[in-house]
């Protein structure tokens, strides 16, 4: 049956923040990240749906304003459309911004690929007192537009039906041909005639698209035809035509073409867009007057950030306590019902002690995701990027670098690193990649929460955490400044960004996002963290210390000897001389090394180490209490440990993504490894030895 399905390859293209990913999720049943700011999708995502006898393979592309791509994410979208040649393109058009969105449609339509418009956000247009007559679009221009409201999953069925109808030629849609006027059209024709001489070119690309792009000196297209037998002739004619057109109209050739396209778009809008009611008041401008105000913008931004952290730590505190109590209970219960021995140690010390330590912070992670999802969905995120641009530039970064840093803080360094694709300048992008791992990602959060909870009062916890977040930004900015002044010198990239309208986030949407991200945390706990925890437990439990060593000593001392004699204990002893000057012992060293697998593993490793030292299952205290009681730890050492965790090498997955995003160059990878490790050691040394010097303990 499956083999009888007809396959249709389609892609979703459209301007940034027009609802492509929401539509993709509706069509495929997948859950791609969506948000109210441009640049949420930075790489193509694939999914499919089966409808009747058709299997529709769908690719969700990053947002583009036109086919003249400049940033990495835009290039991904453009290359797919030009090179992969889908059977059909769904151009997702923001109905409330019809004219601007139609610009891309005209370019897609000239590619010779069938295009359907998903006229999204018709509800927003209605609030503006307008509607678009899709019947007239079809009748007068042969444009098939299907109204949708993607965030409410409306119109999806009609869209799927239209895809099948158009694929089967049951609907007569027409390719749009812009009338550029006789003068320009003659030049297009001249170039088209040259293109027709090379059958390889005509077989691969739309002749019209090539001709128009060549007149506009599109570097991407010029590169595409480099191997053509008519390359020289084309290059000569297109440059000549481009210059003649530019001279004739006393404007750049891009402006001349855009002007003709917008003239056509304006005529379409004049026919199809109807004003049916009085526009409702748009509150966005009024809010922007306050949040982008030259005096209030930065204080409001700082207040928003502080509110997120205060909310997260204050509200989650009782929940974290309940989780910890639950895990302690489970540990005690398992210790009672499982007979003493290796298996008990494996379950109680290894799995519950290790993974349980990480799971204890699950409520905190959820509340953090909740708070950030709220601000993401309102549209404030794009404003934050704008507000921070000037400030970021002082340190050699770009406003969009801030988006990378926030996304990293928001959950994980991996999407944060990938978000750097939206930065047009290669050097700015590289600097952003180098400093984004300094942010306190969701995986580092349990480490911070553990140590702050153990060594600071509940009242001070949120403030200390906020200071740590500020410190992570300070490190990132300082590092960026050094890079910009030394190995990555260059002019900063421009800042042009569309600010989305403010929207009231839906509780359902926020809870869904919170759960999706939280679920990833749970999944990680059940996979990589569990695996590493088992390895750490085995490494700490074997070889077994025995004989005279553990005779006539207390059970606590025996456990301590076991840890010291184990494989991992020996490794800890080996690295201890290097980390001793920064106040750490072998246990801390082992936790830090294991954290390279995933940062949460630092907590699970400490959990396993301290569980092994625990002898009475009924007295299963929480990990933070154990750290508090351990004389090897102090407030100063805890802060030093957090500073080290803040700076040192990110986890392997983030390192792999860094490698890919930095152009797969070994030199940058080695540089990242070297500079994060050395910087972590130096700053930790300063904090620890400085703290001792000023009498903050040892």
């Amino acid at each position, binding site marked *: 049956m499956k083999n009888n399905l007809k396959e249709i390859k389609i892609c979703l293209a459209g301007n940034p923040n027009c609802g492509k990913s929401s539509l993709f999720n509706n069509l495929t049943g997948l859950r791609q990240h969506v948000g109210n700011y441009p640049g949420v999708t930075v790489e193509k995502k694939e999914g499919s749906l089966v409808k009747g006898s058709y299997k529709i393979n769908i690719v969700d592309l990053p947002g583009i*304003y*036109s086919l*003249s791509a*400049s940033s990495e994410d835009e290039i991904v979208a453009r290359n797919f459309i030009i090179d992969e040649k889908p059977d059909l393109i769904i151009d997702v058009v923001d109905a*409330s*911004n019809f*004219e*601007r969105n139609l*610009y891309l449609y005209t370019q897609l339509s000239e590619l010779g690929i069938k295009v359907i418009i998903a006229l999204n956000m018709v509800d927003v247009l209605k609030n503006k007192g307008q509607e678009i007559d899709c019947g007239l679009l079809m009748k007068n221009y042969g444009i098939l537009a299907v109204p949708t409201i993607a965030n409410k999953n409306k119109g999806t069925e009609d869209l799927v039906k239209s895809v099948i109808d158009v694929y089967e030629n049951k609907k007569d849609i027409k390719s749009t041909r812009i009338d550029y006027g006789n003068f320009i059209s003659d030049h297009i024709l001249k170039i088209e005639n040259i293109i027709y001489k090379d059958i390889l070119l005509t077989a691969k690309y739309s002749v019209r698209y090539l001709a128009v792009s060549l007149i506009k000196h599109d570097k991407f297209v010029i590169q595409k035809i480099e191997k053509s037998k008519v390359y020289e002739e084309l290059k000569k004619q297109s440059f000549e035509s481009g210059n003649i057109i530019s001279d004739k109209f006393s*404007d*750049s050739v*891009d*402006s001349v073409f*855009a*002007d003709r396209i*917008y003239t056509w778009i304006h005529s379409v809008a004049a026919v199809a867009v109807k004003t049916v009611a009085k526009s409702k008041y748009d509150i*966005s*401008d009024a809010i*922007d*007057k306050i949040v*982008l*105000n*030259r005096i209030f913008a930065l204080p409001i931004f700082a207040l928003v950030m502080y509110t997120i952290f205060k909310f997260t730590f204050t509200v989650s505190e009782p929940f974290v306590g309940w989780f910890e109590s639950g895990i302690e209970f489970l540990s005690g219960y398992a210790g009672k019902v499982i007979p003493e021995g290796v298996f008990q140690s494996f379950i109680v010390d290894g799995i519950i002690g290790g993974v349980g330590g990480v799971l204890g912070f699950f409520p905190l992670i959820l509340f953090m995701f909740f708070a950030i999802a709220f601000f993401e969905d309102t549209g404030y995120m*794009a404003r934050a990027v*704008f507000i921070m*641009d*000037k400030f970021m*530039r002082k340190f050699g970064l770009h406003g969009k670098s801030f988006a990378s840093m926030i996304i990293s803080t928001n959950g994980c360094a991996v999407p944060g690193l990938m978000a750097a694709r939206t930065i*047009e300048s290669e050097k700015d992008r590289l600097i952003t990649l180098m400093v984004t791992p300094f942010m306190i990602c969701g995986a580092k959060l349990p480490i911070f929460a553990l140590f702050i909870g153990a060594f600071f009062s509940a009242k001070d916890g949120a403030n200390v955490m906020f200071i740590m977040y500020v410190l992570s930004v300070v490190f990132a900015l300082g590092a960026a400044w050094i890079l910009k002044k030394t190995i990555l010198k260059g002019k900063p990239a*421009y*800042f*042009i*960004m*569309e*600010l*989305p*309208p403010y929207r009231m986030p839906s509780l359902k949407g926020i809870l869904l996002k919170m759960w999706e991200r939280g679920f990833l945390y749970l999944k990680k706990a059940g996979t990589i963290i569990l695996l590493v925890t088992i390895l750490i437990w085995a490494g700490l439990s074997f070889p077994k210390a025995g004989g005279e060593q553990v005779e006539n000593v207390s059970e606590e001392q025996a456990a301590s000897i076991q840890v010291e004699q184990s494989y991992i204990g020996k490794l800890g002893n080996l690295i201890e001389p290097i980390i001793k000057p920064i106040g750490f012992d072998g246990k801390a060293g082992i936790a830090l090394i294991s954290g390279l697998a995933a940062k949460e593993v630092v907590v699970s490793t400490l959990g396993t180490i301290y569980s092994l030292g625990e002898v009475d299952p009924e007295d299963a205290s929480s990990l933070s209490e154990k750290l508090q009681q351990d004389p090897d730890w102090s407030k100063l050492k805890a802060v030093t440990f957090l500073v080290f965790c803040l700076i040192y090498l990110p986890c392997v997955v983030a390192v792999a993504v860094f490698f890919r995003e930095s152009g797969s160059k070994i030199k940058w990878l080695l540089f990242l490894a070297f500079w994060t490790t050395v910087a972590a050691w130096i700053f930790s040394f300063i904090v620890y030895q400085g703290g001792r010097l000023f009498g903050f303990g040892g």
Partner: protein
Amino acid sequence: MSPLTKAKKDTLLVFSSFGNIVDREKQKLIDLGLIPGECIKLLQCARNGYVTFILKGSRIALDCNIAGEIIVNEVSK
């Protein structure tokens, strides 16, 4: 005619030409609909030159370097 950074707030402006902007930046602005004769409305102009304005119904934010190179005519009400 004046650069966008010097234009009056809340007035209707008509885009005239680009000053010294490199092709990539110019292309981006054209893609957003900034072509000669296009009406724009300045929303905010910060002391550091950063501006926000409405272009084809969208709010666009620019840094001071670019905003200073966008030449506009003020239209009297």
